[in-house]
């Protein structure tokens, strides 16, 4: 009797396992993600997981802000995953309250006291640089 119960429980466990696997792959879209990721370079993969638009902006900031410069973000919520990723990719540039550069993503261009427009990234973002004293 116990052996029969065990066989039934094992069969149920295997069915649930396959169901959860199938749900992850086909309902949640993991299979589609894997297909796309398989065809990309490492940088392309970083772009895909971050979001191509945001990653493009981060790359733009990396190319235009010197390595050891300080910056601040606008357009990101504090503690948001996007901001954490951007911080990671921009390092060794560091985020400070009084930065040399401000990276604004999905924020309309506006004047900031003590800063001038430095570079624009299409319609999605721009960088302002602190004016020299």
């Amino acid at each position, binding site marked *: 009797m*116990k052996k029969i119960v065990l066989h039934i429980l094992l069969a149920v466990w295997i069915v649930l396992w396959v169901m959860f696997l199938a749900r992850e792959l086909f309902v949640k879209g993991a299979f589609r993600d894997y297909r796309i990721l398989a065809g990309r370079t*490492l940088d392309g*993969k*970083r772009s895909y*997981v971050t979001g191509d638009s945001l990653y493009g902006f981060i790359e733009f900031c990396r190319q235009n802000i010197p390595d050891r410069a300080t910056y601040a973000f606008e357009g990101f919520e504090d503690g948001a995953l996007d901001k954490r990723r951007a*911080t990671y990719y921009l*390092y*060794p540039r560091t985020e400070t309250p009084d930065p040399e550069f401000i990276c604004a993503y999905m924020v309309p261009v506006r004047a900031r006291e003590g800063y001038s427009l430095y570079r624009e990234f299409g319609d999605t973002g721009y960088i302002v640089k602190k004016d020299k004293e």
Partner: protein
Amino acid sequence: METARLIISIGVLTFLGWNVLYLISRGRGLCRTERAALSYALGVGCVSLEMLTFFFLGQPLRVSMLLAPWAVVIILNMIRAFREGGAPRDAGALFHGSRAPYRPVDILLACGIAFEVCYAFFRALIKPIESYDAIAIYAIKSKMLFLARAVTADFFLAMKAFFPHPDYPLNIPFIETFLYMTMGSLNDQLVKVIFPLFALAILALLYCAVRRFASRTYALLFTFVLATIPMFGSYAANAYHELPLACYYFASALLLFRWFERPDRTRLLAVSAVMVGLAGWTKNEGMLYCAVNVIVLAAFVAFNYKGMSAKGLIGAAAYPVIIVVLLLPWILVKRSFGITNSDVDLANINPVYIVGQAHKIVPILNEFQKQIFGPKKWNLIWIAALIGFAMQYRSAFTGIRRYVTLSLALAVSGYVVFYMKSNIEVVHFVTKTWARFLLHFLPVAVYWLALILKDDIRI
């Protein structure tokens, strides 16, 4: 080229870990699979601790300088092996019925485990590090170390000033840095191989541990159950540190329980102490498991000291000393730089304070049960554990099993106290963290279930 270098580096880490294992215990009483699993975890932990010591030595991080001191250990081991006549016997030969033919159900279970392991590697290596904690807390530190090629005061000050959770231990960030250095580039995709390897080590240790008292089918069954838990598979690939911590705690617990069966085997006890010390070097929660193991050990000694040899008692006394020695460098660094945890203040843990926080117990336990019984949660293993305990509660408190039960009870209690002490709103904190904290003692729980159901399921 990077892939080849990565594979060689993992091989080197495992080889160094094997040397540590051989130095402490000659690998006695362990089968080849257990030695391989323990060697990988030891290699990772010991090399990363070595990298931390470079801060005290004021030396830059160079692969050649990191590997050179190991020549002493390797030569010592070679001399010993030559004198004592080679490698110890494979304790896997002691497995009950090891020559029995494979049954169809064995092949089915083995294929399921193999599939999950391969899938974990695939999921880990198909994309770079991108999950929240993995990138915000850990990967940023390994990037800082790799770019600086040194562990300096600036690193700890920058960690404290610019990034969250500077107090989190650095075992995995250091080993990520090591792999970046050996690969020659910041390949945050390939470096994720660390995590499915820890998952594989856990499965290997579980299989061998259950195999020691049960048939191959029984051991494969519980290994299959663990491997197919969706949270286990998902955390084998997302670069969070739950599974590395689970591996160190699980290994230390298994070796501790083995020592309870043979208290004259102090070498296994020493390896257990090193593993749980490395748990404390992997995540702050590892300190909880250091305390759990010490308490369980103290309980065993309290009940059995009359029958124990002087060697066993000295081994037990040395256990907490080994843990402290391993954790001391990181504790000193944190003290020097004033690095503390912003979420939990452990400075004022005392009974009066805990009683004052008693109002938090009900919401904590309510959130706990939601993780187990909530319809959207895939945590059937915990329901199975509760049913198993209800069916075999007497068995759970007999022989060595009572110490496994005690270990799990202490782990859960430790988390309750942790949540009560937290500065963060308790329901929010438990909701965000309890599901993955369960992973820390999941392998021990599955092992415990296998132990207590053994007489009930004869396969």
